[in-house]
């Protein structure tokens, strides 16, 4: 039991769980939505990646745990294939995860955090998210099969029928209303409003947490300077969401679930929403404790736990570690490598337009393509920065204290 708890504690460390989740995301698309095979180029690439981490795991224990979990998931996804979308399997997954959650509640440390009245809705959110994603993907998968077989999507088969407003619409709405009222009432009786101490400017709570829907942003603060994580990225998220209908002009897949017809659109959205947003909220809620240190789900939130502050900037990495010389005095020279990388990264957009993204460029036209590619690059900057932090303890690519500019 202790081993299992320790196993899960290690897996849930942000770096590992993030990569694992990204991998699972890719597996599900490849094996379960696109009917991929292990004996294929992509399948072998997955295995090779896992093998590399297993070898590295000989030296770094967490990576070993990662490799074990990785192969378990890989095996599961490949084995299940499209059967993942069968209700029976879906139910088993639900039962297994609920059981895991329920058994975990027996652990006092897990219980203390999960049963906090603040956190209960986030716990429920995990299941709701999983369920609705599964339902949507299941519908998409079967529709895709229908379409591939020359049929029409399921939604189209019933869209011609007419129904009465009463009782078919209003009655069911009312039932939902009653049900929701009952749930809210029972909830409000069962879990009391989690009131804490009077606000005090001299003693802020530890950890000081944002409201749950902003925990993703707060988690970004770990990797980005506040002006990026708190200003630029949230603005781009809002602007980007508003821009989607103008960028995405693909007429297919309207009014019915389909994955194959909108692979990139759905893939990107789900990755951004599930992995880059919801996952960060869940991490921020359950796994960030006092001092914003990371705590595994079965770990006690000990205030005394310390995280060593050993992050360094790219300039230090480049000049001091690589070239073994002091930092140049002039900021422009000092930060030249970082600035170069940043500009090069942004310069990827036109480069990609000529390379792998050429078909998008042709289909969308220059303005749409550049706006979309720009947003895409910004979105990807989050996982890239996270991985750079985990691999190299990288603090900032560019740090110009002279202008308070950190990237």
């Amino acid at each position, binding site marked *: 039991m202790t081993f299992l708890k320790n196993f899960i504690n290690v897996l849930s460390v942000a770096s590992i769980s993030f990569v694992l989740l990204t991998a699972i995301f890719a597996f599900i698309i490849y094996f379960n939505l696109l009917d991929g095979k292990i004996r294929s180029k992509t399948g072998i690439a997955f295995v090779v990646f896992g093998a590399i981490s297993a070898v590295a795991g000989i030296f770094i224990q967490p990576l070993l745990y990662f490799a074990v979990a990785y192969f378990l998931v890989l095996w599961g996804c490949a084995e299940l294939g499209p059967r993942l979308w069968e209700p029976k399997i879906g139910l088993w997954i639900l039962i297994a995860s609920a059981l895991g959650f329920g058994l975990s509640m027996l652990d006092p440390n897990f219980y203390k955090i999960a049963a906090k009245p603040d956190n209960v809705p986030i716990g429920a959110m995990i299941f709701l998210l999983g369920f609705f994603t599964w339902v949507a993907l299941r519908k998409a998968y079967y529709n895709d099969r229908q379409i591939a077989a020359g049929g029409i999507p399921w939604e189209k088969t019933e869209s011609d029928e*007419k*129904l*009465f407003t009463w*009782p*078919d619409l209003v*009655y*069911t709405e*009312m*039932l939902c209303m*009653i*049900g929701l*009222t*009952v749930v809210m*009432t*029972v909830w409000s*009786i069962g879990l009391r409003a989690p*009131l*804490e*101490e*009077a*606000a*005090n*400017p*001299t*003693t802020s709570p*530890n950890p000081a947490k944002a409201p749950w829907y902003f925990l993703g942003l707060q988690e970004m603060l770990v990797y980005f300077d506040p002006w990026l994580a708190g200003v630029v990225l949230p603005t781009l998220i809002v602007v980007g969401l508003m821009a989607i209908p103008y960028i995405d002009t693909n007429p297919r897949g309207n009014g019915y679930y389909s994955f194959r017809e909108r692979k990139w659109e759905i893939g990107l959205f789900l990755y951004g929403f599930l992995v880059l947003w919801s996952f960060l909220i869940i991490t921020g809620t359950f796994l960030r404790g006092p001092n914003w240190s990371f705590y595994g789900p079965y770990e006690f939130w000990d*205030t005394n736990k310390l995280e060593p502050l050993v992050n360094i900037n790219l300039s230090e990495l480049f000049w001091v570690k690589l070239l073994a010389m002091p930092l140049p005095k002039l900021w422009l020279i000092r930060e030249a490598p970082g600035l170069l990388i940043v500009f090069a990264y942004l310069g990827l957009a036109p480069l990609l337009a000529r390379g792998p993204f050429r078909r998008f460029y042709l289909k969308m036209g220059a303005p749409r393509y550049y706006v979309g590619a720009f947003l895409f690059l910004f979105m990807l900057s989050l996982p890239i920065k996270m991985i750079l932090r985990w691999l190299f303890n990288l603090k900032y690519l560019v740090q110009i204290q002279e202008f308070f500019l950190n990237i």
Partner: protein
Amino acid sequence: MKPQEPIPHNYPMRKLNLIFALSSLALLLATGGLVFYDYVRGWKWFQLEFNRLQQERIDQELGAKYDEETKARLAELEKEDREGQLEVARNRNAYVTAQKDLEQWEGRHYAADQDYRFARALLDAKRYEVEAAIVQRRADRDAKQRDYDDQIEKVERLNLTLQQVTRDRDAARERVGVFLERMRAVEARRKEILTSIELLEKQRRQVQLASTNLILNAPMLDFINPTLKIEQVVLEDLSIDMNYMSVPRVDRCMTCHRAIDRPGFESKAEAERLLNAIQNDLARNLLQPSRRGDAEARVAQLQRIIDAPTQILNPFRTHPKLDTFVGSASPHPLLEYGCTVCHRGQDRATEFGRAGHTPASRRMEIRWEKTKLPIIPGPWDYSNRNYGRTINPFLDTPMYPRQHYEAGCVKCHAGQVDVREGDRISEAMQMVELYGCPACHKIDNWRFTDLKKNGPSLDGIAEKTTPEWAFRWIASPQSFRSTTRMPAFFYQRNMVGPTVPSAERAQNVRLQDAEIHSIVTFLFTNSSRRQWQGGGAGDPARGKELVDTIGCMGCHIAQDMVPGEDGEARFARRDDFPLERHFGFNLTGTGTKTTPEWLFNWLKNPKGYDAHAPMPSLRLSDREAADITSYLMTLRKSAFMSAPVRDPDPGAVRGLAKGYLINTMTDTQAESRLDEMSMHDQLMYLGGRTIEKYGCYSCHDIKGFEELKPIGTELTIQGSKNIHLFDFGFAHDHEAWDGKKEHILHTVPSWIYNKVRSPRVYDDKRTKPYNDKLKMPNFQLSPREAEMITSVILGLTKERVTQNRRAAGDARMRQVEEGRKLMAQNNCRGCHVVDQRGRAIGALISDPNFLPPDLTPQGARAQSPWMFDFLKDPTVMKIRPWMQVRMPTFEFTDDEAAVLVAGFAAEGHQPQFDTMRHQMPPARNVAIGREVYAMLRCQQCHSTVPADPANPPIPDISDTQSLAPNLTFSKPRLRHDWIADWLRRPDEMIPGTRMPTNFPRDPETGGFQSPLAMAIDTPQFAGFKAALLPHFENEEALRRTMADAIALTNYLRDYVWSVGLDRTPAPGTMPQRAVPPSAPAPVPLQTSMPPPSPTRTAATPGSGTVPGVR
């Protein structure tokens, strides 16, 4: 038109209807649950339960009231009533006629009364019309005026009629009344008996669970006028600081603690204490006659509580100190002070956990947490005092646990040295001062600032002791003197304790050895080395006698073994003696510690060795000093000196010194610097740094460390610190220094308690570098001491109360408190009673005639000029020349003496100076007073023969019963009015005084009685009567005066005033500071008293003359 095809429903209707039915039912249940959850509150059960208790009480009282006697009386009245009825029946016809007549008159009276009142109402209306008509200059104003005048007439007429009818009706009533007279009398008597019973029954109806109460408290109806409701007190000016704003305090504690301000629900122990107190008051006639009845009723009530089979448990208990708190007549009435201002906790909460109750012990915590159903407590738990989850971790101000209730006093009473009725917290504050907490920990309030250093100066340590002794002492002070206030810094649990790995332990011992050696080397190298000249051989037996009798024991102890609880002797603890006697050190072992030469000079003149020495001079003669020296030198502890002193480990010294050096230089520089230093130099360097590290200079004067700040955490608002600021480390259960098991609760009080009790406990199981380990020394506090100190620290909060709520805030009380603070610092309570507490020395003096005086009434008693002189030099007047205990010469500065004198005067509500000392009473008063003096036989004890105040003749002390001050000293010393007051009530002013109470109080009226009222006419007093008569108009006036205690005491006062001396000697010059010459020249010898000054000689001529008597 084609008929429309039936469109199929998406869902089967039957299924939808079923879902609708079920979900509606669920909604109904949820709503019911909502109402239930809102309605069922814990506090309602407590109120119901208390109602039940009250009902029981009322039933008991009703039972007591309805005794056999009352029943018999009621039966008798019943019988009489029946007889009355029979009598009426016998005269039936006449009675009926009269009754009918009365009815008619009643009717007429009703009509006439109504007519009159209506006419009056009309009159008022018409007055308005007239006034309005006049103001508006209307044409009909004259008509209105006439109308109004008519109405006046009509009202008068009707009034006359009414009066007439009333008279007639009353006459008719009387005619009927004749028949009913007897029955009415019976009714009146019955009512007399039943009033209190009916009152009780009314109260019973309010608390019983009957139908009306059930309806009033029913769910959804209970908003109208429920009997179960939240009670609260709103306190505007005792606001709560919510960081951004102040909000009024709204205490709702009495919602559950219903009996808190109602006497009659005490615990048994409490009832017994109160019962004894009241019975004592009753026996001593201290209660006013009007309050005796109440007191007796209370005694009966308390007796019932004691006799009851079950205890009353909280929350239903009465506040144990209603006279001081909560009671409406107390200084802190409930409606003005509430509860949380003292107890803390969440004022508005009505749930056990949310209110912030704090357990006093682990046992209590376990009991509180228990529930039958997990988490959800209910009445089935409350009756066992189980409350489910108890701690509210988010509350900034949890309640003080039971043992620290008095911490709540500090917030308002921090400007006081003594808190009235707060003996424990006063003693605790004194303890904090005496043990030196504020020396290392800054406490920024009046009580704990401007204090003297707690330890002796170390600038001359080499003159009084040896390095070998000093090493052993620093290493373990408590093994030399088990009662010492010097704490142990070294070889504590975080250095050599069981949780330290053994390899580290050995290294730590070496490092600690090195540190002690360095301190000793530093102190002895820097010490002055004056040569002291001894006083020759003395007689130890006589020395011991002197130590025991002249007053050393007010501040010192000379004992280190005491009989233990099991009969075996054990080492003494500080707790075994009053706090005052720890002011000086324990005299045991003095012979081992010091040299006779130094001791002799120290005894003669402590300020000669150290100008800031707290020890005063007892004006010892050389002989006395030599005797005492020889006695103290016999108090030896040779075993202590045989403990081995390990040589300093050079590696450890070097390592530690390097540790400090590399803070400012590189490793190589430090190494080369150390290579240049000899071992002695290294020790000297390390010694300085070590003294800094441990803060030795906080308590001791050490040259070169004058400017350094104290090393401890500031404690000014320690009691307000949130729990997360306390590092609990990994400590839970542990064993304190005395082997007792302690448990650390996760509460601030428990943290502080364990911190002071085992200061290094939070290092248990931790891995820290040597210099980062906790440094607080071990005072070896007993659980009691630790609790008291914890109470004070908990009381130091950031809450600030408004000026008008602060105790002792006015100018007069500030003077009193300044005086008290100085008295505390000079340990006056070691010998004197001050404000009813103190006189630690009293336990060692069996004859109360030899006790140092009680200073409780001193402010009203003594004149300021005299007191100033006396404080400066106590030899100016020997009031009680037979006393062996000496008032020491403290060498107060003028400022200090003035503060003390002003404090006394303010305390006695007296002006500092008054004119009376220059005035003489009328000759008639003196003459009468002289006779009264003789009649009361005052001369049996008192003398009126003038004497030299500085050297009065010592009376025969074989008969200690008759020892009394010479009255000729009264005039320069005592306040004029006080003398008469004292004569009237000596025992009330100073309980247990030998001065007889000549004018006892009358238990009925509370006034004073005169013993001469009767005696004046007896033959024995015939001579006095004859002598007195010429001063009075007639014999009646004489008798009247002789019965008047006030007049008699005033005459006595005037007589005493008339025989008084006019002046007293001026205070002597300050004794010379004996600084020994560097050459071994003899120390200037001092006589037991300073040489007489010229002033003094002039003021007091030979004893044969009668100065001051006119």
